[in-house]
């Protein structure tokens, strides 16, 4: 134990540290949810479990490729290995769904973008399209709803090729993405799982 008079300053520091990180997370995510731009990403949910954080649907995305910028494509293998963070622009298509555009070494001057740790990006040799492991890969639901959500998605998908379209609503701000809702056929998954017939 930290002795005598040093205990209280050390205790204060510990409390600050233990509250600062969760506090910072809360603040950043709240700001993104309140002020971020809305984007929709097509997705496919499946239902796994995390012993600590509970039941969630894991999200798979059909289109996660991004084109490397000229500067990025020109880097040799050793320089690519040293990369720490990359930035992917997010572009909204005519169908209303968003996808990744260009992969950059620095944040773009304008438009929405995602900040990506380099280990979430698989670069191809030269200027081949890179595969991106999107940072929003799970959506938490209550214990009963998660398996129900996956079942509904599969049922609707197999019944009709046009139905069962799942998409994730994401809010983007300053490179940070916070999922704001998971939808199947334009209905929020929580509502759909509770009243599937409506």
């Amino acid at each position, binding site marked *: *134990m*930290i002795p005598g008079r040093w*205990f209280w300053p*050390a*205790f204060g*520091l*510990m*409390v600050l*540290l*233990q*509250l600062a*990180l*969760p506090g910072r*997370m*809360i603040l950043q*995510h*709240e700001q993104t*949810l309140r002020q971020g731009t809305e984007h929709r990403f097509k997705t496919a949910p499946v239902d796994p479990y*995390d*012993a*600590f*954080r*509970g*039941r*969630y649907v894991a999200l798979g995305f059909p289109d996660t490729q991004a084109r490397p910028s000229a500067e990025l494509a020109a880097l040799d293998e050793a320089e690519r290995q040293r990369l720490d963070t990359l930035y992917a622009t997010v572009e909204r298509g005519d169908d209303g769904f968003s996808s990744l555009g260009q992969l950059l070494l620095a944040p773009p001057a304008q438009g929405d973008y995602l900040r990506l740790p380099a280990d979430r990006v698989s670069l191809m040799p030269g200027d081949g399209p890179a595969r991106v492991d999107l*940072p*929003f*890969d*799970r*959506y*938490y*639901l*209550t*214990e009963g*709803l998660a398996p129900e959500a996956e079942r509904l998605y599969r049922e609707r998908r197999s019944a009709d090729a046009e139905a069962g379209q799942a998409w994730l609503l994401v809010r983007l701000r300053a490179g940070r993405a*916070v*999922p704001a809702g998971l939808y199947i056929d334009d209905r929020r998954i*929580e509502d759909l799982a509770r009243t599937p017939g409506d």
Partner: protein
Amino acid sequence: MSDAAHRAWLEAQLPVLVDAGLIDEAAAAGIRAHYGSPEDLAAQRRNRLLAIFGSLGALLVGLGIILLVAFNWEQLSRPMRTLAALLPLVTGQGLVAYARARRADSTAWLEGTALATFLALGAAMALISQTYQVGGTVEGFMLVWALLGLPLAYVTGASLPALGYLACVMAWAGLRFGAPRLPAYSLLIVLVLPPLIARLRADRSSSRGALMLWLLTAALLEWMALLLDDLPQAWVLPALAAGLALIYLADGIVEPRGAVGLWHRPFQVLGGTGLAILGLLGSSFGFDLWRAAELDALGPAQGLTLVGLLLGAGLLLWRADPERRQAKLGLGLLPASVLLGTALTGLGAADGSDTGATLASLLLNLHLLAAGVWQIALGTRRNSLALANGGLGLVLLLVFFRFFEADLGLIGRGLAFIGLGICFILANVFIARRMRP
């Protein structure tokens, strides 16, 4: 016999000794004071029970909160969930402060509040992740939890947050196992050593001390597995044997001295068991342990790892006091035989034959047999049943494995068993002659 039973026996004996004139009342009072009064013992027992139940209570409440959090209360608004996430943490921190200010002498309060805060920290992070749909892997979550919880071990001096930290770090390394994690893992283990060592110095012989030693041994084993992950296949066996021998021989430095049970000797138990299993697998003529062992060249770091482990084990054996050295000689020298076996296999593999592997297995058989017999002889000489039984166990396991080995012909096995039997009879005669007055 428990402490209480010892104390009751002593209490009954003291008046008898006084009546017999062997000691006087003053000496009897002195002995009573030295071993503590029955009331002192009862108080100690009560405190220990309080500490155990307090810690268990905190553990259960903390785990319960994590499960409640994992349910995902979607009916609650975001601010409410944020509050629900931080409330147990702030309460835990407040209780830690209270324990320090008002209950500084109570282990139950100290350990219980520190553990509850550690668990509340995990619950808070989990609920915030859930509320804001934060992605990321389980192992990443465990690492952040461990690092944020570590200050609790330093500030409170409690052992349970240090153990929680160690468990989280081990899970982090184990969930995505691989040599690249070695530097970070090493640093993470070093970070928890100061509070852990301080606690171990204070009460190495207690159950808590034993728990700390077991987890520390497990962490060391995982560290060694990460270290060996990078070595070419042929060199893994000698490095593993040396690493296990290091753990087996380090017991004299880390574990409590005196007559304590195996529960207090994880270094000896895990290191010794690991060496015995490795030796038994290596002694098998049918098991593929020695196959595919061309001696690939080692890189500088890999060579240094292997030499370091071998020299470390050798140094510990050499520096041990003579009595311990003798007792640990059999298994402690196993890395030397495994190294020789590796060299024999490698040389044989270069010629494309299995002769080297067969010789290596034979060598390990001889080594384990000699180690077992040596230990039985030593145990007999020192009147140590534990030592003699350990040696006997080793020999019996060796015999058992060879008897059921289908790859050896019946005639070969028969001859080997007869030879072994003669060796035992000769050893028996030798020991009996030595013990004759």
